[in-house]
């Protein structure tokens, strides 16, 4: 008996979900698009939230920014849960081996006490800034609209929490646990931290999610990360024998560069949507970048001494260039 085996191709009736095909047409879509497009709940909200009866549960009216299509705010990194966790797991592995390298060679002990104390004085209060970033991005996710915009905001919130945890761990490696308490006391009481604390606490109560996005992710983080991790840790400390600190904070500048692509893309698309959006976002940027620069001036002075003001001005100019590139009127 002969058995004739033939390969038969079965054409699928649909290439992707109908909610995705509505945006991309019926062709195979990436996992990112399938996890994002059409995922925002948009109808059949029976009750308004008791805590904010002026709005629906998910409502485009919570921000003054107007978008015809909120799914236009795509993430160029194409993060959905799986890709994001895989990327962060790889970075966590790299950080673990950095820790192993530093601890096995006793690199922290080779730093001078004065240098170690200064690194802790600058970095420990920043745990609370990172926690503020976590709260604020949770808020962007909670109050924003459109999965393309809110899902990466939640990832960004958890990344901020990760930064806070890395700083905690750094403090415990560099010194006794009391160093965390000292950082908290500085954050609450030392006059030089109060301007930044005021900025962070003022943003905690911002109601407009897009305004909050600009204030936290573009203005504050856009100045803080290049200043602290670029100028202070990677340049200043490393030159004086503090390479260990640069290794133990390696995640932060890497993450900042990566997430800046997302932030710039969101700002660029939203600002290009209409002249009203452009004016609104440019106004927010101008106000918050100015305030954040003022808030960071005492920190720059603490970290870099007399070079602090120049370094802060340099990162501000770099951030202005970034904002201009994203299409804002600066």
């Amino acid at each position, binding site marked *: 008996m002969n058995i004739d085996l033939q*390969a*038969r*191709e*079965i054409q699928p009736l649909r290439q992707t979900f109908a909610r995705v095909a509505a945006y991309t047409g019926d062709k195979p879509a*990436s996992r990112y698009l399938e996890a994002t497009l059409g995922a925002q709940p948009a109808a059949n909200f029976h009750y308004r939230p008791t805590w904010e009866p002026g709005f629906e549960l998910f409502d485009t009216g919570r921000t003054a920014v107007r978008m015809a299509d909120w799914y236009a705010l795509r993430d*160029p990194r*194409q993060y959905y849960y799986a890709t994001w966790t895989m*990327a962060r797991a790889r970075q966590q592995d790299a950080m673990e081996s950095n820790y192993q390298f530093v601890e096995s060679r006793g690199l922290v002990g080779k730093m001078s006490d004065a240098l170690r104390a200064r690194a802790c004085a600058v970095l420990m209060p920043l745990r609370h800034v990172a926690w503020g970033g976590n709260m604020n991005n949770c808020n962007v996710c909670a109050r924003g609209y459109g999965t393309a915009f809110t899902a990466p905001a939640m990832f960004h919130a958890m990344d901020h929490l990760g930064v806070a945890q890395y700083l905690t761990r750094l403090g415990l490696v560099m010194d006794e646990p009391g160093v965390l308490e000292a950082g908290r006391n500085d954050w609450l009481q030392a006059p030089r931290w109060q301007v930044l604390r005021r900025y962070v606490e003022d943003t905690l109560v911002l109601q407009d999610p897009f305004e909050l996005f600009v204030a936290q992710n573009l203005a504050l983080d856009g100045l803080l990360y290049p200043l602290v991790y670029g100028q202070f840790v990677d340049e200043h400390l490393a030159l004086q024998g503090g390479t260990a600190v640069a290794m133990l904070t390696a995640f932060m500048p890497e993450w900042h560069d990566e997430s800046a692509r997302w932030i710039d893309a969101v700002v660029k698309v939203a600002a290009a949507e209409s002249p009203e959006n452009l004016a609104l976002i440019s106004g927010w940027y101008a106000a918050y970048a100015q305030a954040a620069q003022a808030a960071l001036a005492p920190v720059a002075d603490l970290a870099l001494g007399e070079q602090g003001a120049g370094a802060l001005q340099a990162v501000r100019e770099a951030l202005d260039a970034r904002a201009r590139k994203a299409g804002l009127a600066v």
Partner: protein
Amino acid sequence: MSSSISNVFIAFQDNEEARPVVEAILADNPDASAAHTPGLVKIDAPGRLTIRRATIEEQTGRAYDLQQIHVNLVTLSGHIDEDDDQLTLSWRH
């Protein structure tokens, strides 16, 4: 074949990982054509075909190591010129 140029080809498993690579190849090589057979995508191009890392990274939004194509690569024909940024198939020596 009537043309004097022979085709080069490369074939991948037809899956989620290979899709951005296939799309990048089709974007970079206007003369290339893809044929989907069950489980397999075969891309033919007259004379020459280039895979560029930068184009794949644009498609995926992430860093890409060109060696990753070997996970899903099934077969190819042509002489290979390869470095970190590109892989070119052609019949030239």
